[in-house]
């Protein structure tokens, strides 16, 4: 802020026209050690609370780029973590899926490989019915049929 701009702001301050934000700006200008005597009076009239609030806000503002950079670093870290998780999921899900779709039930009936659980159970039930219902001769014949050749 130039000397003239500060003087104009002082005029507006004395006329009661300045906003609190303009007064904080003015407080920083008039509290310089080399400020003219009139400016020092204005600084004291604005008060320590106004000057220190202006200083606080300015210092916090000056830290913001650092904070933004930190925030950006944290953000990138999360993006990489998310990407790694997606890759892991993309690899794991098809593997698990393919394992799940591998048949757990395998039976060989009359030399044929059967993997359908329902079919195997149906055959077993039918075989048991045959075994229980038809006596030992039939079972023997069946065993002969299965293992004989």
């Amino acid at each position: 802020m130039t000397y003239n701009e500060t003087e104009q702001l002082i005029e507006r301050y004395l006329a009661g026209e300045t906003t609190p934000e303009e007064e904080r700006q003015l407080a920083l200008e008039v509290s310089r050690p080399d400020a003219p005597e009139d400016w020092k009076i204005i600084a004291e009239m604005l008060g320590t609370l106004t000057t220190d609030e202006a200083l606080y806000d300015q210092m916090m503002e000056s830290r913001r780029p650092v904070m933004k950079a930190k925030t950006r670093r944290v953000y990138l870290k999360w993006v990489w973590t998310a990407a790694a998780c997606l890759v892991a999921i993309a690899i794991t899900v098809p593997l698990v899926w393919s394992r799940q779709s591998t048949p757990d039930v395998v039976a060989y009936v009359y030399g044929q490989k059967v993997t359908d659980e329902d079919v195997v159970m149906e055959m077993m039930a039918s075989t048991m019915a045959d075994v229980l219902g038809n006596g030992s001769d039939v079972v023997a014949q069946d065993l002969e049929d299965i293992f004989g050749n």
Partner: protein
Amino acid sequence: MTQQEFEQIAPEMRDEMLRIGRDFFGNEMDADDVAQEGLLVLWKMRERMEPDRRHTGLAIRVAKHCCMDLVRKRKRHENESLPSEGDTLRYEKNLSATPQEELEASELKNAVDMAISHLNPSERRLFEMRQLDGLSNDEIAQQTNIPKPSVKSMVSTARKKVFEELKRRMRQ
């Protein structure tokens, strides 16, 4: 505001001041110092604090002042530096006054207090609502039911009176 009324709003104001201290220093110990010092400042101001108004804004301003005060004290002792981030040189002018400058500032502050005490009660009230509470003319108009142009006019009159009295004193 009575002691009891102050004690009722103190926890809320303390929380606000802790937040400000934490944001600035980034640690609980300094934030605690800011809140404790801030409550002390507010306690001294309690007579001019109106019970039916919110004082969070004032508490925030006081907390920011306490943060700067802590920085000044540390700078004076030269044991600890200013927060390292940012361009600290820009603030040297406001944070490193010599004892002579501090004495002059203290005398000037007393003179300002004296000049303010010579204002009529309504001018003084509005002057302080701008100076201490940091309120705008709009906010003062809302809180006091005084029309905004009248607020502006009274604030201006008060400020000009104080300024002229101080100039007169400094010439003597």
